[in-house]
């Protein structure tokens, strides 16, 4: 790169670069150990036997030969402390809500972005300006009315009483019937779709596609729907993947809104909301194993996504970060 530079200063700067690389490596290595430690602790704790959980708080991993998967088995199998036996249902809730939200967001956002970039129509700039302004208005102003709408519409239309599934269970000899309602799902999926950030991300990418491509396809008689599906979408594959990731992580980890919506409907909880009941410095150490196992279980989808796509995700976030 610096072919024109003189030789001696180059080797000097190379030496300096090597030195700073070594120092960075050492510091980053330590920092990364600190960043990883909580995860290692989490996994280690989830595999400890109940007696080791209480007696050996200092050891991160269970002692040799004492690894156990009983906590994982317990919450998948039956009730451990009467609290987390619904974990598989909550996991399915999260998966359904998140994937539907991602799919609807993608369809709606790509269509709108296409219109904003490749169509000329009156009021386009006004709409984009309104979208941008809305990003600076704190969402908290809308939270209360949105929840009020959820309550009033549900009550007025009777939708809030529509039961999707009925679950019968026998707990300590007491028969119980619990319901999974349809209405909260709708309100957990749809509001997230209105986010402006993902739309802008896609719109920005579409703007980088040469207009000539679209124009010439149009003059060849291709319909806009064909151009959208055959030309624009394939070109935007990596941006779309990025939006999928952002949307997935955002929806999966959302806490406040699902807490509001599912309040009073425990079977409608997302896994994130459900696990809030197991946080806090409560000294019930016998439950620690089940808690940590549940936490590991709830992390799996995000972790799988992250392991496969982290490079793309980080690069994408980095390159689009400034364009927010």
């Amino acid at each position: 790169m610096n072919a024109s530079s003189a030789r001696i200063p180059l080797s000097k700067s190379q030496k300096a670069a090597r030195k700073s690389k070594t120092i960075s490596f050492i510091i980053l290595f330590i920092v990364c150990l600190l960043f990883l430690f909580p995860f290692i602790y989490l996994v280690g704790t989830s595999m400890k036997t109940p007696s080791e959980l209480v007696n050996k708080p200092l050891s991160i991993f269970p002692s040799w030969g004492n690894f156990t998967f009983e906590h994982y088995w317990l919450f998948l199998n039956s009730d451990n402390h009467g609290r987390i036996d619904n974990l598989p249902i909550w996991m399915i809730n999260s998966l359904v809500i998140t994937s539907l939200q991602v799919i609807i967001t993608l369809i709606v956002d790509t269509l709108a972005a296409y219109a904003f970039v490749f169509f000329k129509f009156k009021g386009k700039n006004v709409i984009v300006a309104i979208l941008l302004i809305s990003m600076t208005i704190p969402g908290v102003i809308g939270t209360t009315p949105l929840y009020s709408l959820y309550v009033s519409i549900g009550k007025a239309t009777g939708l809030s009483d529509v039961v999707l599934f009925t679950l019968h269970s026998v707990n300590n000899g007491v028969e119980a019937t619990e319901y999974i309602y349809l209405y909260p799902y709708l309100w957990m999926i749809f509001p997230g779709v209105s986010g402006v950030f993902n739309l802008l991300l896609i719109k920005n990418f579409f703007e980088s596609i040469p207009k000539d491509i679209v124009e010439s396809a149009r003059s060849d008689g291709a319909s806009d729907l064909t151009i959208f599906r055959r030309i624009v979408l394939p070109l935007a594959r990596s941006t779309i993947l990025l939006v999928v990731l952002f949307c997935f992580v955002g929806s999966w980890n959302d806490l406040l809104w699902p807490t509001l919506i599912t309040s009073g409907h425990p079977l409608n909880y997302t896994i994130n909301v459900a696990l809030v009941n197991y946080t806090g410095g409560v000294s019930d150490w016998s439950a620690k194993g089940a808690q940590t196992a549940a936490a590991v279980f709830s992390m799996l989808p995000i972790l799988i996504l992250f392991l496969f796509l982290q490079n793309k995700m980080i690069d994408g976030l980095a390159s689009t970060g400034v364009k927010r």
Partner: protein
Amino acid sequence: MAEGTIKEHTEAGEILRRYGLAVLFVAPYLIFFVCFTVIPIGMGVVISFMDYNPYNVGAATFSGFKNYGYLFNPDSMVAKLFWPAFGKTMAFDLCAVPCILIIPLLLAILINTQPPGYKIFRAIIYLPAVTSITVTGIIFSSLFAGDESGLINALFHTDIQWLNEGVLRWAVMLFVSIWWQTGTNFVILSAGLRDVPKPLYEACEMDGGNKWTQFFKVTLPNIKGQINLCLFTTIIGYMGLYGQPTVLYGSDNQPNALAPDTPMIMIQQWLNDPTFAKRTGTLSAVAVVFGLLTMLVTLIEKVATKERKRGDKHERQFRSYTSF
């Protein structure tokens, strides 16, 4: 004449076709946007001037500035709940926001020297940012558990009640926030650093600038856009602090509606408590005031970081999306 009308017809048809298609493409997104962003925000402002109960919408009446009056009357319950919560959040943000900007910046500078394995380091530092706050809460509330079974207490042979009400709990929250949210800013800042033109550093070195002058005269001005972006999003995020105090609490301070930790928690508790439903108008006034205060803080941030001279490319892009 006839030819002209035919041409006009096809032109009109073409415009209609194109226009109709544009509406078809934009409409789905706009419906979501209007339903779940515009209407709630508008309603929020309107309801704040009303006596409003979502369970009995018909009985709503306008009440002028009564709801805002409560908020500024030091003897009312609303003021007694909101202002301390707001104060606590602001005090926490004054400590947390600089930390969550400076630590990622330092790490980004280290990673920018590209030591061996820097992609792995990058992924590890970013990993906590995709972890949900509940999993984070489960990990750290057992690390900081108040009895001798907490790892930190066991390690230092102490018996400190980390998570009980007080400064200590907020310090733990700060620590957790740094671990949890360093990643996003780190990735954005390191991308900014990567794009700083190398010749600028060489020129600075030629002119006899040492590392510090390089940092302040070359690095910082060139990533100003990214720094502003991180500052803006971090401030917004931490004004609406919700997750950390929700998941980190001790056995003696279970969440209760009489002393919310932050304004967002207060709003969530009121909404989920049907006995507060008749105070929805008051809560909307709280949300509007809180939203305006958030905007005020971001405005101050913007004025404070406003560049005297023309900004660079990223700066302008950023501005065009965030400042209105």
